[in-house]
């Protein structure tokens, strides 16, 4: 027998298995508006870069009629490839094979590629499209999930982990994405929940559709489980590639530098921000006025939009931005925004990405709902994250920096490396209105015309404290700068910080308030 016939046999076998669940199941998948698992991998990775492993793996289940049933690849495709010529490990659940259900061998394939990613220190991308546990395989499928979650945790902060939800992801399965760094969802395709609409209805009598309970929009806007939202799968893959271009391959490297670019000409930063601290503006415009090419990749755009997080480049190098957004809820800190920012700060710190903080906030959001939902412990997250971060930390105080909000937003006291303030900055325990009412309570109450006295005292307080110079006199801010100098100052600060050496006391790990 010639070698040729062996090769032909191999090709035949491969072709057979690569069809996944077969033409009928593929047709169904397409009808749902979804690409197949293989198409997804090929669309995401560099052309001709994908190499598959464990194609011929088969399940060994015996119960409930599983014996003799062939499930190609056991419902998941694993392999390696490249994005922008840099290696990644990837798995994609194949919904056409037994609904992408997770059995023992399916899980083993996933954990194999996860182990590989961690050992090789390359990013891991997981495409989720699965009906959940393969019930016929019982406790083995639970074991499989557990092994995956454990590895997600091991790899956390070592390699980037990206989850792409392109179909259902329900029950225990949701906890793998939840443990990873970035979750991508697509309109009408992604569905994530712990208990589905039918259980919710039967137990609680609450009528809710799958989309309303755990659709893409819900996770992008309400729950904060998703970091990126796209209209189509192909848009989603473009977002993943863009993200990959901003982040390093692992925690011992820096993100690859790009060619430095100047911000786009046009908007001047001083034209964006009104001097009156009570009038809003779009902080994203301020960020874009200082980043290379005015490019900014916003993360969690629609969740807690009162704080902005995302990546931009300064002189070609990746920088993480955290910024209050006066346009939404006056830019206050609250439970959601603290949680959102804290996690991002920890991400940047883990992956050697300097953090630039743009500050303009009136403080924490008042309200019984906030207090009862635990704004104390949730609000503490952002303090913890900034204090713990040892990457270069630069703050620009644009306007208001009041009270606890001032301390929390990477103040000098949390060991910010550079703190700049615009001349419009107001660093104070609270705004003039609130402060005057307390400090001059007696004078106001005893005045012939209390309202007139109140205004007079507010003005007095404004003159005295609503400026950056009181804090500058203490050295709490390093320099009061002109708005047009912002980019140059940050660039210089980053240059000076390039070999920053700072560390935390030796410990196993801290106990952050989560």
């Amino acid at each position, binding site marked *: 027998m010639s070698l040729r016939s062996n090769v032909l046999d191999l090709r035949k076998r491969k072709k057979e298995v690569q069809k996944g669940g077969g033409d009928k199941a593929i047709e169904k998948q397409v009808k749902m508006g979804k690409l197949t698992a293989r198409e997804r991998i090929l669309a995401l990775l560099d052309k001709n870069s994908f190499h598959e492993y464990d194609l011929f793996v088969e399940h060994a289940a015996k119960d409930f009629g599983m014996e003799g049933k062939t499930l190609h690849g056991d419902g998941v495709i694993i392999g390696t490839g490249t994005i922008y010529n840099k290696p990644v490990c990837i798995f994609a659940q194949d919904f056409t094979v037994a609904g992408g259900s997770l059995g023992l061998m399916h899980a083993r394939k996933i954990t194999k590629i996860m182990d590989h990613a961690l050992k090789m220190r390359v990013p891991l991308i997981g495409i989720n499209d699965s009906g959940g546990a393969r019930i016929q395989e019982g406790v083995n499928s639970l074991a499989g999930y557990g092994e995956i979650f454990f590895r997600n945790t091991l790899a956390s902060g070592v390699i980037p982990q990206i989850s792409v939800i392109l179909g259902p992801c329900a029950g225990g399965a949701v906890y793998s994405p939840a443990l990873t760094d970035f979750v991508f969802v697509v309109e009408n395709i992604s569905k994530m929940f712990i208990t589905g609409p039918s259980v919710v209805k039967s*137990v*609680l*009598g*609450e009528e809710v559709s799958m989309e309303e309970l755990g659709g893409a929009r819900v996770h992008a*806007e*309400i729950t904060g489980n998703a970091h990126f939202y796209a209209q189509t799968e192909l848009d989603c893959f473009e977002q993943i590639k863009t993200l990959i271009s901003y982040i390093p391959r692992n925690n011992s490297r820096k993100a690859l530098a790009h060619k430095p670019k100047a911000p786009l000409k046009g908007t001047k930063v001083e034209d964006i921000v009104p001097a009156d*601290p*009570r*009038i*809003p503006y779009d902080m994203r415009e301020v960020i874009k006025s200082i980043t290379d090419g005015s490019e900014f990749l916003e993360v969690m755009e629609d969740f*807690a*939009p*009162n704080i902005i997080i995302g990546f931009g480049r300064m002189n070609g190098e990746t920088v993480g931005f955290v910024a209050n957004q*006066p*346009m*939404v*809820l*006056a*830019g*206050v800190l609250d439970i*959601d925004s603290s949680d959102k920012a804290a996690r991002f700060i920890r991400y940047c710190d883990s992956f050697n990405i300097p953090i630039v903080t743009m500050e303009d906030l*009136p*403080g924490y*959001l*008042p*309200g*019984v*709902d906030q207090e*009862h939902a635990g704004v104390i412990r949730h609000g503490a997250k952002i303090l913890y994250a900034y204090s713990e971060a040892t990457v270069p930390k630069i703050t620009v105080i644009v306007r208001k920096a*009041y*009270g606890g909000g001032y301390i929390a937003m990477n103040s000098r006291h949390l060991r910010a490396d550079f703190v700049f303030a615009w001349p419009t900055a107001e660093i104070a325990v*609270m*705004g*003039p*209105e*609130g402060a005057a*009412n307390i400090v001059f309570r007696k004078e106001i109450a005893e005045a012939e015309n209390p309202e007139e006295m109140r205004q007079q005292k507010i003005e007095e307080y404004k003159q005295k404290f609503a400026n950056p110079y009181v804090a500058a006199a203490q050295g709490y801010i390093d320099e009061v700068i002109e708005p047009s100098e912002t980019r140059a100052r940050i660039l210089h600060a980053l240059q000076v910080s390039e070999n920053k050496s700072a560390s935390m006391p030796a410990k196993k790990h801290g106990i952050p308030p989560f």
Partner: protein
Amino acid sequence: MAEEKEFKNLVVQGAVYKTTFTKKFENRVNYVSPNPNEIYSFIPGTIIDLFVKTKQKVKEGETLLLLEAMKMENQVRMPFNGEIVKIHIKKGDVIPKRHLMLEIRPI
């Protein structure tokens, strides 16, 4: 600015800020101090039994009704010695969470 009309006011420590609200913020539930004379359901479920009538005097700790939820029968008890003022439910009713079930008063 053309969008200026859409801005809303948010008061933080005496200062009024022009800004926009999120859906989540607008949908937040305003806090109402609980009235000890009103008994609400703490979970959605089914009233499987009701043991009291209007004007009946009830001692603290006596079971007023059974609310079945999540396959559990929950006994709803009288919080103090008092009287049943008004009953808003009947046996077999399926009720949501925070549904007013009984009005009572201490005696």
